[in-house]
């Protein structure tokens, strides 16, 4: 039964990882941009939520109605001001620009909030559990996180499949120059995709901050999990990202079940195994470009 519990907890944790990875998958899928500041932007959102919930005396999850739209706008502006300049050029420029942004965010957070660890107080939701039996308990917060991830990914999938803008996203992802020949403003597509990416990672950051402590420097570790989830699931596949997040989450909880120190190690090992055995990921397509 403890193994069943480990798998269940892993699946729920995978929802959080998938949420972290969704934006990364979207920005890479649409414009081949690897945003190394992705994790730092999540933590930035967590700190913003901390300030808003403290100032307005509201639950951090309620503050999401302010933080997520604000993150959308921040993403749009970041794309127009910074990322547009490094899309489609030497990837080294992407690395420098996004890594640099990450460092700026970390140091700005350090300046404002110090290096002290913080947490978002979501009240009873953090500790409430559905007790299935003596060994299996499902926390409401992890369940809410997982449901949020499924809802976000499902909404994005519907958006991409059934809207005019979603069609433009897919066309731009396939061939940006051909998309321009269809009259698609690819700069706008890029900006909206980055806005969505930052909005989803802000959501992930707040949910992460609701279940774990955080400080200005934990962003890069979130970035690595997000990368691993994207690559395990397969580049360019949204549902693959969920599968990747779940695979990573289950590997970590099983590892932790064997030895409390082995959780992250197991996750990284599964990631490496997927890279070796199936480099395109579980649901990735090999595309000739």
């Amino acid at each position, binding site marked *: 039964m403890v193994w069943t519990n480990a798998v269940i907890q892993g699946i729920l944790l995978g929802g959080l990882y998938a949420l972290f990875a969704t934006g990364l998958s979207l920005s890479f899928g649409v414009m081949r941009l690897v945003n190394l500041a992705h994790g730092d932007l999540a933590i930035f959102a967590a700190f913003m939520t901390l300030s808003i919930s403290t100032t307005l005396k509201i639950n951090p999850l309620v503050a999401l109605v302010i933080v997520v739209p604000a993150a959308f706008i921040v993403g749009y502006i970041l794309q127009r001001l910074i990322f547009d300049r490094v899309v489609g050029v030497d990837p080294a420029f992407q690395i420098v620009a996004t890594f640099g942004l990450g460092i700026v965010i970390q140091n700005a957070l350090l300046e404002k909030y110090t290096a002290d660890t913080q947490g978002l107080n979501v009240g009873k939701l953090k500790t409430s559990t559905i007790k299935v039996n003596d060994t299996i308990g499902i926390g409401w917060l992890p369940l809410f996180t997982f449901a949020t991830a499924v809802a976000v990914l499902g909404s994005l999938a519907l958006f991409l499949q059934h809207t005019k803008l979603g*069609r433009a996203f897919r066309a731009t992802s396939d061939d940006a120059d051909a998309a321009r*020949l269809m009259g698609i403003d690819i700069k706008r597509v890029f900006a909206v995709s980055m806005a969505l990416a930052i909005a989803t990672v802000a959501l992930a950051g707040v949910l992460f901050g609701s279940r774990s402590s955080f400080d200005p420097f934990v962003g890069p570790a979130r970035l690595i999990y997000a990368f691993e989830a994207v690559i395990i699931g397969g580049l360019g596949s949204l549902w693959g990202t969920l599968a990747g997040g779940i695979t990573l989450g289950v590997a970590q909880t099983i590892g932790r079940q064997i030895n409390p120190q082995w959780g992250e190690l197991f996750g990284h090992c599964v990631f490496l195994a997927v890279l070796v055995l199936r480099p395109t990921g579980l649901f990735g397509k090999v595309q000739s470009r």
Partner: protein
Amino acid sequence: MSEPLLQLDRLDVGYGDFQALFGIDLHVAEAETVSIIGANGAGKSTLLKAIVGLVRPMRGDIRYAGASVAGTAAHKRVAQGIALVPEGRRIFPSLTVEENIVIGGDVGRPGPWTKHRVLEAFPLLTRLLKRSGEGLSGGERQTLAIARALMSNPRLLLLDEVSLGLAPIVVRQVYEAVPVIKAQGTTVLIVEQDVNQALAVADRFYCLLEGRIALSGVPGEIPKEQITQAYFGMPASGGRP
């Protein structure tokens, strides 16, 4: 005399330090079909890329419908009525055939070309609508690329190497679409290596040689030997271009 629909004035185009086109002067009148012929590397595709805005000119001007579009973004030129069927078709593989058709009309002008009208003109596509853009034959891809471009109801349609890689029978079928397109009043500019095919449908032609216009005129009025010489840049030796 009214201004041509498209006019290029002393156009220089290049990529970085490499200059591909030198002082191109060219005009296309409304409802005219003009072919641009030339050997591989003559700069034909670069010329079309400059006209649609995928490459910025180094010098010179591109005037379309009486106004300069040299600084206009590619996506805005589509809305103004310029559409390109690109070399290599560039079909979107993650979209279905139907989505590939519809996306051509998402931005564009109102006009006679609707999804229904396009499928009437290219019935081959009707049975492929739900298929992915991936895995189509060369002829199907070319037909789809033309249908997709027509969906924006272009005033000026540019066809880049539409015969490339296609079987002769398929090339003939593709070129049979040109009179249908012309009948709607669309101006057509064709870039082609297949000289016979290009001259057969054109009202006028230009021959490019190493980035410069080597010859222009009306097919049938210019001796074939002269065209061959302009095409290869050397005196004709009895062979066909």
